[in-house]
């Protein structure tokens, strides 16, 4: 096969494939859209999703055969339902604000990073850095997750049906993590707010992560989240919080407050 050495092309925003257009291949019926992503580039798939959600106003979109491509379903800023039938690669569904997304397969690194609001449900396993810098919304992984899940988490809820890898909750600032299985070494290392609930065993705690006291509000939240997502709730959880030994500040400057909030 003749290899075409066409150099990568970028538009003024740094995007590859500057000439890509939405393929307009979705079949729409009863307000629902479905298209087959086989043979489409990452950008074409994302443009088709955006075309349907933004231009057509369709709020129920199914993408078949995503073929574990990276960066699918990112930056969707409206309320809609998106279902990926298959697995996704790295950085799936990041930077969203509003969608409710279901992924029937597995995902690679950094799924749902930086999401502002919405729901992402992964039916199988997820890689490392799942929910990195999560700002809000619910992220549900039915299987296991890799290392550094919820690193720098600033809000929202991460619910893990299986086990979590090492350094889960590293530098967590706010929000909730619920781990139904076991947690690896360095749980909650350098966290300075938020809460991590673990039903199984913890290999080791990270710096300044200590066991906390379960409250009625905690139990209500756990019941509610498990009820919504139909997962079987383990009978008991141990709560982990920040020990506040690393809290070396009294008053935050205005710009620092922005970062924390």
């Amino acid at each position, binding site marked *: 096969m003749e290899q075409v050495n066409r*150099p*990568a*092309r*970028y*538009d*003024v*925003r740094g995007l590859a494939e*500057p000439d890509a257009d939405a393929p307009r291949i979705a079949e729409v019926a009863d307000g629902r859209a479905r298209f087959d992503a086989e043979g489409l580039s990452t950008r074409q798939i994302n443009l088709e999703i*955006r075309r349907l959600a*933004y*231009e057509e*106003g369709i709020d129920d979109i199914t993408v078949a055969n995503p073929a574990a491509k990276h960066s699918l379903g990112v*930056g969707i*800023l*409206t*309320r809609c339902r998106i279902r990926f039938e298959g697995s996704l690669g790295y950085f799936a569904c990041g930077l969203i*604000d*509003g*969608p*409710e997304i279901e992924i029937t397969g597995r995902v690679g690194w950094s799924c749902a990073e930086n999401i*502002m*609001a*919405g*729901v992402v449900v992964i039916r199988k396993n997820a890689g490392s850095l799942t929910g990195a810098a999560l*700002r*809000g*919304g*619910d992220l549900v992984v039915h299987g296991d997750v890799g290392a550094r899940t919820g690193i720098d988490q600033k*809000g*929202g*809820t991460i619910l893990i049906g299986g086990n979590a890898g090492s350094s889960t909750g590293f530098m967590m600032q*706010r*929000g909730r993590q619920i781990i139904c299985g076991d947690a690896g070494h360095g749980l909650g290392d350098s966290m300075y707010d938020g809460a991590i609930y673990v039903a199984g065993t913890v290999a080791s705690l990270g710096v300044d992560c200590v066991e906390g006291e379960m409250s009625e509000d905690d139990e209500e939240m756990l019941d*509610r*989240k498990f009820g*919504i997502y139909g997962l079987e709730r383990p009978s008991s959880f141990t709560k982990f919080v920040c020990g506040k030994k690393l809290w070396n500040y009294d008053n935050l400057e*205005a710009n620092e*407050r*922005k970062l924390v*909030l």
Partner: protein
Amino acid sequence: MSEGHLTTRVGIDTEELTGKTFPYQHDRSLVDDVDLVAATPGHDLNWLEDIHLLEEDGIPSVFDRYTNAFLKIYFDIPHGREDEYARKVLIKHLQEGNSYGIWLKHKHAKFPQPELGPWRGGSSIVGTDWTPPEMEGWTAPTGRYLDGDEKGTS
């Protein structure tokens, strides 16, 4: 709506940015009918779960992350319902399109997106005609950008 005056003090206050306050900051009845669950994705409060009543300049306030600024609440908040009203005021603020950060979308949004994001359906699409700002006397380095032809491939 009351008009204010911008100051030069360093702050993260919505009034500093917009120069005014909005009626729902003063009148509780204007936010009473806000349905928080309907206004958020999923079956509970979703991202609003992390929104709480805070205080800025000694006044009850809610933090608007879309502007990076506090929105002050001047009406009396019933005891025990602080977070509820903070969330209702914030959602009203976003749905009405008054968040200063959202105003900036008209000029600075680089990609097509609903102006009012996920808070109100059917809002207009902004960011469809973004062009890079031009600085007088500055030219883009060669080989970095395309000008619609192949000369700048990298």
